[in-house]
């Protein structure tokens, strides 16, 4: 076990190396690149499973291993350690990330088969997988942040993978910058935490920043109003999570990110990367709850409200979208909101349970959507699809499983159990009932938009220009991952039911006991009945509204347009959030840039020019003074001297008489001088 932890670094490093190598490979080395990436990730997966087994064996113990990275100051505080942790949370996340990732890698083999930049794609995917694996197993906040940023980079590269499309380029930039807003606040929280507590290791045998001693110190310090330092730092970290996990108000990048290839959407923007924010919150949960016993910490309240609002908001927007991937994107945002809600109200286990189940069925849904898009010659508008169940049975069935899981269809599907857990926790939340009702509304909306999508895409008859002849089922390399994911979407639910809350127990380090009676407790089903009703209501409304339209085989107006009071445009336009940014932040920045540039060009450069002019004037002045006064005087003196010299030289004309005259004159003068001087 201990020796095993030392070798865990292989898990993220293998895909990283694969990324580095395939980055250097020529573009034609398609097989090499794909083989390397998939092989390394498979190896990572195996290692992850072994780690998972190891931690399971040891009953959820926490194992650490670290090394000194660099020294920047005196003492222990001045040493930056990097470390990784093997505990239930990281182990289960490792398995999930590498497992889902592996399936998506395999799927990409088929999906991207015809792309010119195939090798680059696998390079980026491997980079992403490595970074994400590093993120989840990191035991240091700095290491986590580094992987966090690398994940962002991989996301940037993959969204902009089809770089010739201006929309893709813009979306990539938008994603990077929007998430960077959150990242920078996160960075500040990191710096604050590190600077204040002197450590950035989560667990360090009692001196880590998530352990009692440090937490107590943090709680003691009050910063603003009544907030303790731990809460403020928690809030800053949460800002990072908001950016990465697409919570309000930084969610705008996630739908645009669908410009990337569909496997990317599945891997990054559904299953794994966007869950990094949730994971971060789960990782630092001890920090968030640190404080007096029995008091709900303010950060958790913020998280709950943000999560709940995001869940409903995104679900509502998803209702009116026409693009199959965009619907799923908003659905992802909404589900991430649920996760946050679950974390805030129910603790790590609740949130992470939904994270894991969601990873399976959202990956499934995206891959299914990709299969559809692939088959229907890149058609993404659900109004132009239809009737696909006849030609794509495997996709249809698996997509249906995913859809039912997402809506939380009772009993059989994983989404039901994880969502129930969240709703339970919300219901029991002492602070406010608001998040519960938000969650419930979200459930209804989720059921509705998924039914709408399902019916329009697979039900009825084909519409638009998608002709039946060209539609074909995807190759096995794509369908097999779908089937695997579909079965996972069912199975994962059963490890976290109230009767046998194994996963929750695992995550919290307790032994789970099978107790059927708990399954039939009144409190369970009392609440479940309400949520089931919401699900059925949503599905029913969806069926009623769209079944007939789907059957008709002609593109029709969306019945949603009959909604009252301009609600439909609001939904379609995503409540104008993008537009709001477009008209506030973007012009503000442009204005600032403009003025900074103007300042530089006119004020500072102008001052410089003014100084130059003054200097020139002074120079000209002094030049004139020089020439007219100083130089002229000197010149004249020189001229006179030369002239007189010339005249004098005439005396030296070689005539003895002249010399003699000199001698005479000189004698006369000398004698007179001598005489005169002698007489004094």
């Amino acid at each position, binding site marked *: 076990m201990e020796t095993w932890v030392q070798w865990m670094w292989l898990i993220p490093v293998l895909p990283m190396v694969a990324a580095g190598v395939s980055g250097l490979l020529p573009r034609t080395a398609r097989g090499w690149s794909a083989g390397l990436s998939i092989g390394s990730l498979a190896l990572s997966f195996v290692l992850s499973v072994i780690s998972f087994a190891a931690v399971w064996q040891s009953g959820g113990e926490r194992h650490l291993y670290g090394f000194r990275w660099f020294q920047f100051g005196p003492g222990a505080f001045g040493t930056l350690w990097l470390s990784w942790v093997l505990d239930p949370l990281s182990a289960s996340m490792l398995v999930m990330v590498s497992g889902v990732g592996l399936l998506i890698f395999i799927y990409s083999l088929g999906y991207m088969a015809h792309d010119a930049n195939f090798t680059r794609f696998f390079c980026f995917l491997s980079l992403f997988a490595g970074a994400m694996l590093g993120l989840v197993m990191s035991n240091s906040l700095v290491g986590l942040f580094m992987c966090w940023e690398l994940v962002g980079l991989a996301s940037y590269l993959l969204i902009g993978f089809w770089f010739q499309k201006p929309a893709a380029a813009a979306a990539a930039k938008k994603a990077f910058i929007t998430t960077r807003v959150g990242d920078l606040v996160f960075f500040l929280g990191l710096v604050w935490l590190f600077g204040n507590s002197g450590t950035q290791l989560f667990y360090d045998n009692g001196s880590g920043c998530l352990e009692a001693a440090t937490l107590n110190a943090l709680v003691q310090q009050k910063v603003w109003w009544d907030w303790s330092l731990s809460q403020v730092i928690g809030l800053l970290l949460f800002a990072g999570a908001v950016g990465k996990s697409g919570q309000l108000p930084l969610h705008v990048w996630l739908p645009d990110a669908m410009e990337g290839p569909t496997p990317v959407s599945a891997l990054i923007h559904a299953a794994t990367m966007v869950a990094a924010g949730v994971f971060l919150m789960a990782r630092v949960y001890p920090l968030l709850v640190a404080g007096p016993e029995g008091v709900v910490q303010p950060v958790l309240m913020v998280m709950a409200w943000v999560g709940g609002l995001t869940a409903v908001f995104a679900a509502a927007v998803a209702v009116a979208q026409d693009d199959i991937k965009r619907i799923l994107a908003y659905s992802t945002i909404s589900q991430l909101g649920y996760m946050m809600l679950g974390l805030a109200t129910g603790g790590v286990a609740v949130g992470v349970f939904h994270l894991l189940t969601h990873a399976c069925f959202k990956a499934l849904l995206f891959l299914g959507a990709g299969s559809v898009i692939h088959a229907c010659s890149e058609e993404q508008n659900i109004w132009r699809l239809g009737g696909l169940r006849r030609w794509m049975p495997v996709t249809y069935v698996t997509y249906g499983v995913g859809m039912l899981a997402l809506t939380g269809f009772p009993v059989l599907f994983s989404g039901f159990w994880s969502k129930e857990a969240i709703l339970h926790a919300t219901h029991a939340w002492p602070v406010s009932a608001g998040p519960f009702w938000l969650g419930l509304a979200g459930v209804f909306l989720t059921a509705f938009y998924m039914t709408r999508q399902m019916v329009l895409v697979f039900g009825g008859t084909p519409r638009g220009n998608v002709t039946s002849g060209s539609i074909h089922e995807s190759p096995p390399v794509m369908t097999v991952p779908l089937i695997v994911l579909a079965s996972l979407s069912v199975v994962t639910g059963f490890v976290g039911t109230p009767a046998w809350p194994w996963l929750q127990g695992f995550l919290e380090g307790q032994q789970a006991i099978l107790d059927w009676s708990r399954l039939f407790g009144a409190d369970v089903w009392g609440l479940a009945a309400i949520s089931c009703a919401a699900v059925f209501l949503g599905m029913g409304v969806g069926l009623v509204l769209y079944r007939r339209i789907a059957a008709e085989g002609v593109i029709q107006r969306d019945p949603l347009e009959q909604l009252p009071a301009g609600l439909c445009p609001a939904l379609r336009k995503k409540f104008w959030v993008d537009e709001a940014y477009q008209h506030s932040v973007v012009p503000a920045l442009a204005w600032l840039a403009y003025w900074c540039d103007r300042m530089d060009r006119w004020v500072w450069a102008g001052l410089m020019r003014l100084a130059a002019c003054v200097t020139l004037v002074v120079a000209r002045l002094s030049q004139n003074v020089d020439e007219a006064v100083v130089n002229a005087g000197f010149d004249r003196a020189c001229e006179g001297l030369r002239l007189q010299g010339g005249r004098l030289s005439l005396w*030296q*004309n*070689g*005539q*003895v*008489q002249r*010399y*003699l*005259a000199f001698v*005479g004159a000189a004698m006369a003068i000398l004698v007179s001088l001598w005489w005169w001087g002698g007489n004094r």
Partner: protein
Amino acid sequence: MSPLTGYLVLSAALFATGLAGVLTRRNAIAVLIGVELMLNAANLNFVAFWRYGAGGPDAAGLVFVLFTIAVAAAEAAVGLALVIAVYRHYRTAHVDEVKRLRG
């Protein structure tokens, strides 16, 4: 004006006249004339000082004058020979045309 002063002033005037001749005349012989005048002025001085100054019985002043006369005769002979030689060479006896001394 004592006698000595009178002879000295006469000597000075003679000397100045000779000098003027030396300095102003173009002809070499005329220059020579000036030189002779200056020599005579000097001689006159010797004699005047012998007679009125610190003469004494040793007759140094007179002897000096005798020597000077002898040297002047030699000088005149050599000078005139030179003048003749210059005249032969340059076909002129005008000193202002003889400028070999000019650097």
